[in-house]
């Protein structure tokens, strides 16, 4: 187990370096600091001195990968690549381009509202999706099955924006049950989070019910189910005890895919509902073209994805004793 964990973490390093190189090439070769300065300072009418000054303040005046003016190690360390990209490998995200915010402390502060939204959404949608899918699998081949399947496709075909705007309109404006947007400290945040969580669950429900149903039906066709039925177990018991346990592996595999989606979904949801989390932070950064923040968020997103992948692999051993990591 431990050796497996170490190996997985070691395997994550080249991936992170790859992400790092990709963002570096994108932001500093395809797009130059010169362009960034002009985009932020505004248009073409900026004097060269102002651009140089801006680059100096943020350390973008250094050469990109190789500094010939320095000696020894300085040729490598006095460069944008070392100072802006390699430092990210040490989780040092630097400062934002526009307001000179410390991105690392911003992330630590804004992490909690994001988690307060994402964790309930994630747990509840998993729970509701699986329960509904089991129910549909129980009634497979009936009229109910057909209707629910069509409803699922319908729900998948509706834009997330519709759920957000519609939810705000219905629950915030017409029924006046919850505030439309905003956020509070501590427990008072709960009433602000009800609607975003609800919207998050409803938005992903169609896809997850459909996928889980397919997995359950695949399992139902297997021999052990026939055996279980043959020994006289009720259909309910077969489904809830035998099929559910065996279907966990494919379901868990989709969990890893849904974690980045959680990040992506919360990007729009957070901005719409005014939750001061990482998604809202990113949207603001995109709006003000703050490349440093976007770079940091790309990197953070890929770290989250890799961590989620490792957790998924470990959870395989918990649901299936045949899986041994090593």
């Amino acid at each position, binding site marked *: 187990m431990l050796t497996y964990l170490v190996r997985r973490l070691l395997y994550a390093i*080249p*991936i992170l370096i*790859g*992400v790092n190189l*990709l*963002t570096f090439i*994108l*932001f500093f070769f*395809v*797009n130059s600091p010169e*362009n960034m300065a*002009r*985009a932020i300072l505004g*248009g*073409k009418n900026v004097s060269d001195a102002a651009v140089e000054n801006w680059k100096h303040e943020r350390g973008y005046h250094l050469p990109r990968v190789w500094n010939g003016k320095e000696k020894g190690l300085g040729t490598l360390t006095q460069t944008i690549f070392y100072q802006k990209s390699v430092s990210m490998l040490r989780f040092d995200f630097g400062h934002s381009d526009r307001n000179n915010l410390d991105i690392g402390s911003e992330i630590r502060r804004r992490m909690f509202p994001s988690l307060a939204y994402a964790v309930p959404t994630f747990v509840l949608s998993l729970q509701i999706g699986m329960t509904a899918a089991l129910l549909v699998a129980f009634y497979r081949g009936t009229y109910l099955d057909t209707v629910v399947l069509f409803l699922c*496709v*319908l729900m*998948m*075909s*509706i*834009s*997330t*924006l*519709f759920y957000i*705007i519609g939810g*705000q*309109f219905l629950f915030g*404006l017409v029924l006046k049950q919850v505030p*439309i947007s905003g956020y509070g400290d501590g427990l008072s945040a709960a009433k602000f989070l009800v609607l975003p969580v609800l919207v998050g669950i409803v938005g992903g429900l169609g896809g997850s019910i459909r996928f889980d149903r397919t997995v359950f039906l695949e399992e139902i066709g297997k021999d052990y189910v026939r055996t279980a039925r043959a020994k006289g177990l009720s259909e309910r018991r077969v489904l809830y005890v035998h099929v559910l346990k065996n279907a966990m592996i494919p379901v868990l595999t989709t969990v890893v895919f849904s974690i*980045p*989606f959680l*990040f*992506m979904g919360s*990007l*729009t949801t957070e*901005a719409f509902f005014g939750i001061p989390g990482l998604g809202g932070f*990113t*949207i603001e950064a*995109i*709006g003000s*073209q703050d*490349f440093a923040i*976007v*770079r940091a*968020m*790309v990197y953070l*997103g*890929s770290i*989250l*994805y*890799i961590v989620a992948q490792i957790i998924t692999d470990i959870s395989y051993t918990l649901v299936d004793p045949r899986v041994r990591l090593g």
Partner: protein
Amino acid sequence: MTAAAHGNTLAAWLDAWGFMLGNVAVVLIFAGIAWFASSVLPREPWRSACRQLRHRPMAWISLILLCLYALVGILDSISWRDALKDEQGKPRRDATGRIQLEPKPLSILDRICSPLRLQNEKTYSAPLADRQFSKDLVKDDTGRSTWVSAPLKYPGTHLLGTNKVGQDVLFQALKGVRTALVIGGLGTLIIIPFALFFGVMAGYYGGWIDDVVQYLYSVLASIPGILLIVSFVLIFGRGLAQLCIILGIASWTGLCRLVRAECLKLRELEYVQAAEALGVSRPRILLKHVVPNLMHLVTISAVLQFSGLVLAEAVLAYVGVGVPVDVGSWGNMINNARLELTREPVVWWNLMAAFLLMLGLVLPANLLGDNLRDALDPRMRRR
């Protein structure tokens, strides 16, 4: 963000010729469909799949709806510029005697819908209304001022009402069809060759090629899709053509993974082994035996990818990295109208038009994808 601000020649070129790329895309898509229909459909398992689809009304209805959208898209894609007319109605010429053209090309759809396009009101009006939506303070003959909603210039002609600046909502929504089709279609067309090439190479050849490809898509897949797209757009600028390429590059990894897994299976099958034993060259095996057997996977995920991209367009517009604001798209419509539900009384027709037209495209695509999957999957067929 304009391309000029970036000083990027590629972006500038795309800005200038982006609309032509759309036309080229339409031709390419139809060439692809024609090729698909003529060369692939008569073969198994497509023949039996078609036979199956014949008994599924849902598949037919979806296909007809998609064709309707495609028709609107084509009508809006073939465009040309009119000559500028002088006062006597003759074409205006410049100093060298060349006929001067309008700055903007007009598509066939623009020409068909010219009443809708040109009959603009001042501001909001409800669907089929004959008066303006808002009331103005007007003094009547006796000097008393009353709140009156002014009559419209073209009463009863706006089937879905007008938007904030008085443009016809139905026309705006129809203009969004082409944008959605180009983003979904061109994006998918870019994904397929990428995913197919890398997936087949990795799955069939294995070894270091497999390692490299796996590394490539692990890196790309580990970046949350929307952030990857956002950073590309921030750098290459906004534009329909750029967005298609970016969406394509950012989302080929899923299909690549599928193709690679399928190839690993196909490589071990008897007919591929037999072909190798008979000394058929590897490229020939790939083209004749492996790729045709991947086409069902590719088709299904292409259809689903298409609907995903259409939905993504709206989200990107909201985030502020979608198609340029002057290009008609459902994302831009929703983005502009997002505060209209908080108005009193509510202005709902803008949002409804955009969401309904989007649903009308995405739902048939998803249903068709589902039906195709059922018809092509031998396990489903037996059931």
